[in-house]
């Protein structure tokens, strides 16, 4: 039962155990436990491959909040299986690598807890069928990424990078949430599978395009598409295993997963095709263009990742036209773009993972990853050199590496765009040209990566440690990935038939299974694609050789202050400034102002409700009569109250307050409340004494030196509060909805054996209340005693330190 649900939960459970293991078991590195978890999950998922390949899917439902349609539904199909295999497989390799990469003095329990948190969240993203659950896991990946980027939180650049990635991905995710809610409003379901079957009726719905664009916003921010790509290079402040895992192989591909997953929902729409394809192509070009100028190897790889993600994105965009209505079966050819996209996605994870690990090794062993300080490492680090050749040449699209195959397929799909006559020939023809130019730039930065690092002059004086080969533990994972790079080149169809083809069913459920899938071959004649590749090599080599002659162009074209990075930084500063100004404008630190806010709120909310409901109904007749004596006391109290505001002396004000108090106690006598009258008289006397004592210690009143305007405001506020208060009280007296419960207490003699009803209520019916009241008095007494007795004058040590 719930086996796939369990696969999501296991990493979270393991994340909880990691700190305990770290603390208790000292002999074995805690990373091995994490390795065990991810490998077990990987093997478990591998066991699904044969069934998935034969077209089966698995659906597990765990009812979570059924009344809101939110259920923990996992859906295991071809598409989610690929991602899950990458998550757990690369996860295992990265864990091994990290065991040797991170010093044992680092806070390993934090590191591995975050890593497992990420793994669980990411599995949740790819397995969830319910969009709300998907959203939760989606944001959880952002949070775990934040924690991992900020792993070395004592460095400011790490914190800034973490903040930037969080702000960008979370705001995109928030947009995605709104898009999901729109989808739910349209289709009435939260299940992606059900949406796919019903969406065709909603293409004209006014929310259809907004929902699409918002979901794409989420995908683009997560997958670092232009112009949201700026967070990825700064995220490279994370430890290298994290960069290899989250920021190249898995998390940044969540956006691609989302676009692929929603292709059946939105795919037939032309807007979808344009947005996804164009954003992808721009990202492809911009990423590769910027990668060349980087001097930090990790930054170079970050931009290269951006570029490759754009390439995959654009292919998925192109493939969506296969779902367009009114087109015949020959449109099926465009599904091959999606095939190429997933193929390249897997290839990218292998070669980019290996390359990141190579950079990590260089950084770890030599103490720097700055290209200007590196060079000539080929003979000193032969294995690392070999791996980096495999990785970079695959990335550049050269045989015999897997990148060559997917790059050729990319050219095929990008060339097929020319046959779509959506807009003028020139524009359609421009897409392949841009893509080809980007491929040339890709070739250039791949060469920079290999040749500037491993060939040329060895400059030991610029390194922190002399160069030597890394230990086997660190080399193991990149070697495995490098082997995959070569194996996939030679046996691409094993992967194609068993893993990629089932994923195609998920992207194009509307099309028949027999039309999907593709035979991959390295040699398909001397066609245009091959010519393009040759062109890439020739021009790329040319540009690389004359790199230093044209590199100066960058500063001229792209000054730092005009970049999106600068825009991000400036707007962040501006937001901080503006919010500080706004906050300071009303958080004045004056009690009076805060009280005014509270009173104004009272006036608006309560007075407004009163006006709205028109609840003023006064009937004065039904009440008891007023004697002359009562008139007299009332008028005396009103005069006393108003004079309190006018008197100059404190003493008079205090005495006027006592007049009010004694007036109240006279009223208690009139209202047949002897206990109250007695208590009030006693308390009022004591209060007056207290006030007089305070009068003795406090300074003489100064004239209220507030501005005239604020005095007027105070006056208006006070009168308004009084009026509203009176109106409500009068209205309440009139509209008594229920019988008074007091008659119950009149049985005091039978119930409590008392004749004084008030005393029975206090001492018997509500005895707990009275007891707690005594406690309040006690606390107040202690407070008074403490304030008076304990003297911490200036110059004395604070009491807490004694």
């Amino acid at each position, binding site marked *: 039962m719930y086996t796939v649900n369990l696969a999501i939960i296991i990493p979270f459970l393991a994340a909880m155990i990691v700190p305990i293991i770290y603390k208790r078991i000292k002999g074995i590195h805690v990373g091995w436990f994490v390795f065990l978890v991810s490998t077990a999950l990987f093997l478990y998922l591998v066991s699904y491959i044969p069934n998935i390949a034969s077209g089966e899917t698995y659906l597990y439902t765990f009812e979570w909040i059924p009344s809101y349609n939110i259920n923990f539904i996992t859906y295991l199909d071809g598409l989610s299986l690929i991602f899950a295999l990458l998550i757990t497989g690369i996860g295992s390799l990265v864990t091994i690598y990290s065991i040797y990469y991170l010093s044992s003095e680092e806070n390993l329990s934090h590191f591995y807890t975050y890593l497992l948190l990420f793994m669980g969240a990411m599995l949740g993203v790819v397995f969830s069928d319910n969009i709300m659950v998907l959203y939760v896991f989606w944001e959880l990946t952002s949070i775990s990424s934040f924690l991992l980027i900020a792993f070395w939180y004592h460095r400011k650049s790490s914190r800034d990078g973490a903040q930037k990635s969080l702000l960008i991905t979370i705001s995109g995710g928030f947009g995605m949430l709104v898009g999901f809610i729109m989808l739910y409003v349209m289709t009435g379901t939260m299940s992606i599978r059900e949406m796919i079957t019903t969406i065709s009726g909603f293409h004209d719905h006014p929310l259809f395009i907004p929902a699409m664009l918002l979901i794409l916003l989420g995908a683009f921010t997560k997958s670092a598409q232009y112009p949201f790509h700026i967070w990825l290079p700064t995220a490279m402040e994370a430890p290298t295993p994290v960069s290899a895992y989250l920021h190249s192989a898995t998390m940044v591909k969540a956006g691609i997963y989302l676009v692929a997953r929603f292709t059946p929902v939105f795919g037939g729409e032309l807007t979808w095709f344009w947005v996804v394809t164009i954003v992808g192509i721009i990202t492809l070009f911009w990423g590769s263009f910027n990668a060349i100028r980087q001097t930090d190897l990790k930054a170079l790889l970050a931009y290269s990742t951006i570029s490759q993600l754009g390439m995959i994105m654009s292919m998925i965009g192109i493939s969506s036209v296969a779902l367009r209505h009114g087109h015949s079966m020959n449109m099926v050819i465009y599904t091959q773009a999606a095939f190429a996209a997933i193929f390249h996605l897997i290839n990218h994870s292998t070669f980019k993972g290996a390359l990141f690990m190579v950079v990590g090794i260089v950084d770890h062993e030599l103490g720097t990853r700055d290209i200007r300080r590196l060079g000539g490492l080929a003979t000193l680090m032969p294995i690392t050199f070999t791996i980096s050749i495999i990785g970079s040449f695959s990335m550049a699209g050269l045989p015999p590496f897997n990148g060559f195959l997917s790059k050729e397929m990319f050219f095929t799909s990008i060339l097929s765009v020319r046959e779509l006559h959506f807009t003028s020939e020139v524009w359609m023809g421009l897409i392949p040209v841009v893509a080809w130019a980007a491929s040339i730039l890709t070739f250039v930065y791949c060469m920079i990566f290999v040749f500037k690092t491993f060939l040329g002059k060895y400059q030991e004086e610029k390194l922190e440690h002399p160069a030597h080969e890394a230990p086997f533990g660190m080399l193991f994972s990149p070697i495995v990935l490098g082997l995959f790079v070569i194996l996939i080149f030679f046996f691409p169809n094993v992967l194609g038939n068993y893993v990629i083809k089932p994923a195609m069913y998920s992207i194009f459920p509307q099309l028949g299974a027999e039309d999907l899938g593709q035979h991959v071959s390295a040699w398909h004649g001397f066609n245009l694609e091959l010519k393009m590749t040759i062109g890439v090599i020739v021009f790329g080599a040319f540009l690389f050789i004359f790199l230093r002659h044209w590199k100066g162009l960058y500063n001229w074209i792209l000054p730092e202050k005009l970049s999106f990075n600068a825009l991000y930084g400036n707007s962040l500063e501006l937001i901080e400034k503006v919010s500080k100004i706004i906050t300071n404008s009303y958080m004045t630190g004056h009690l009076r102002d805060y009280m005014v806010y509270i009173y104004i709120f009272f006036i608006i909310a309560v007075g407004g409700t009163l006006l709205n409901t028109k609840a003023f109904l006064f009937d004065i007749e039904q009440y008891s009569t007023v004697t002359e004596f009562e008139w007299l006391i009332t008028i005396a109290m009103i005069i006393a109250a108003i004079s309190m505001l006018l008197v100059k002396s404190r003493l008079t004000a205090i005495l006027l307050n006592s007049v009010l108090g004694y007036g109240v106690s006279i009223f208690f006598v009139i209202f047949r409340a002897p206990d109250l009258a007695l208590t009030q008289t006693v308390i009022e006397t004591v209060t007056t004494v207290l006030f007089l004592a305070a009068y003795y210690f406090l300074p003489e009143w100064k004239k209220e030196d507030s501005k005239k305007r604020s005095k007027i405001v105070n006056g208006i506020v006070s009168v308004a509060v009084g009026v509203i208060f009176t109106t409500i009280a009068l209205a309440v007296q009139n509209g008594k909805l229920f019988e008074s419960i007091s008659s119950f207490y009149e049985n005091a003699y039978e119930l409590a054996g008392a004749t004084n009803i008030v005393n029975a209520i206090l001492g018997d019916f509500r005895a707990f209340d009275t007891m707690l009241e005594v406690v309040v008095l006690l606390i107040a007494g202690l407070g*008074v005693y403490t304030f008076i007795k304990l003297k911490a004058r200036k110059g004395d040590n604070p009491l807490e330190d004694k």
Partner: protein
Amino acid sequence: METLTTILTGVLVSVATYLILSRSVLRVILGTAVLSHAAHLLIMSMGRGLKSGEVPILTDEALSYVDPLPQALILTSIVISFAVTAILLVLAYRTYRETGTDNLFEWRGIKDE
């Protein structure tokens, strides 16, 4: 009578509000004291009807009693408001000793040692 009491209560509330909005700490405390007077009178007039019966002490002669429930509540309230006033006064005294002023506006921004 109820209406008259309620209007008196309203006047007291207005005065209390104005006092609470002032700068001198003693005025603010006086404001809270006046506010509790107003509250007590209000609770009283919210009962079954003022003067509409005998003192709520059970006797054989009485036909009806005034509402005992507000009285019980007010009795609690009187004591609590006394405690609050006492605390506030001592707090004001202590703050004055430490800062040398009773003006709320000048208390702002004073660093605690």
